[in-house]
């Protein structure tokens, strides 16, 4: 094992430990009854636990070498989880005006970024899926925006299932969220357009370190399609 490999592995382990640490602290403190928000303690605790699990996925995949996500990608996803996790614990949703707008815009931007990367991977490694640049960007916007729909349904379902009115308390909130989704998705699509017009799909996905696995999967996908019209 080279020295660089050992150092990288140490950094990966450090990431895996540090990333969910804050959220774990919030969960424990909420369980102990120290919670700054108006939400029920059990609600904060369970939400923080879900966020801990989500924030651990990318660092653990990196350690296992199944998906070596770049650090900027891990940091972006972690940041957005902290935007929600911290607000849940400290109560920023209630104390800072328009925090939910900020949270929705930033979350939609991250989701749209993931959609953009996903579609770029497909575009780069398969020949049976081909989109022009404009169509590609249109689909990135549409899918990013549509995820807002899924989230709103999730909010409504959770509130109805557990008997809360924390997330889906007013139709104006839902409409505001949908509008924030439009803004977030559109902003990220514009940024994606800049990236897409400057680099090829292969260049964009190169930092994701998935070349080997995606070449195999892309080949399989192409063979399955058979390219017959």
């Amino acid at each position, binding site marked *: 094992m080279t020295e660089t490999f050992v150092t990288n592995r140490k950094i990966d382990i450090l990431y895996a430990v540090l990333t969910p640490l804050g959220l774990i602290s919030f969960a424990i403190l909420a369980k102990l009854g120290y919670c700054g928000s108006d939400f029920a303690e059990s609600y904060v605790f369970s939400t923080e636990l879900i966020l801990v699990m989500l924030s651990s996925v990318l660092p653990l995949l990196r350690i296992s070498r199944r998906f070596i996500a770049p650090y900027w990608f891990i940091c972006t996803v972690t940041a957005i989880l902290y935007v929600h996790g911290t607000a849940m614990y400290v109560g920023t949703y209630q104390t800072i005006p328009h925090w939910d707008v900020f949270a929705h815009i930033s979350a939609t931007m991250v989701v749209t970024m993931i959609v953009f990367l996903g579609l770029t991977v497909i575009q780069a490694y398969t020949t049976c899926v*081909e989109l022009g640049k404009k169509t590609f960007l249109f689909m990135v916007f549409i899918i990013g925006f549509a995820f807002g729909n899924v989230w709103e349904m999730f909010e409504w379902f959770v509130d109805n299932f557990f008997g809360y009115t924390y997330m889906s308390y007013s139709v104006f909130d839902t409409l505001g969220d949908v509008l924030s989704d439009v803004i977030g998705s559109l902003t990220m699509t514009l940024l994606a357009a800049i990236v897409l017009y400057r680099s090829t799909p292969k260049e964009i996905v190169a930092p994701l370190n998935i070349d080997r696995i995606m070449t195999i999967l892309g080949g399989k996908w192409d063979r399955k399609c058979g*390219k*017959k019209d």
Partner: protein
Amino acid sequence: MKRSAVLYIVSLAIAMLAIAIGFHNSRADLIAPGILGTVLMIIAICESLRSKDIKPWICGTVSLTLVICMLSVLFTDLTEWAQYLMATPAYVAIAFNIMMYLVAYCGVRLDRLMACVYLLFTTMAVSNASALVYYYYALTNGVLDEYTANYWINAEFATALILSIVSIIALSEAMKRKGIKLLTSKKLLEGGE
């Protein structure tokens, strides 16, 4: 050509009828789509005269959407659920048309899986956009109260999701039975792909 001419005339008539009913009932939410539909039909007729036939499914979707709008204005005693059950096929049809338009004119090649994925998300995005416009209008004009609207907006999202899943299963099955593995634009085929 004859069949599409009949379709254009019928669609134009429906669009103009929507404007008339909209003015009669003072409903801007019917006048606006009616005007939009009329303009689209006039463009369709002009284009078809120049042998650039606009596909009949575009006219079909416009007409279907307008008929749903008209029904919801004329029969105000229809429950909201009935309206959504009528409106969601229009969302799916609009999404399907967007996808087919991209395949027909924009140099796109899609396999079965990606066609289904795009149809699903486009339907949801159309339902999202429609909800955004309709509920802002309904709430600011007192058509719906806040509590009911909060319930129905989520019901609309759920109905759109369920129906789009049914539609993608149907699309996938139809492609399988016809032996279609890829949807490819003429542009790409001519380009030697």
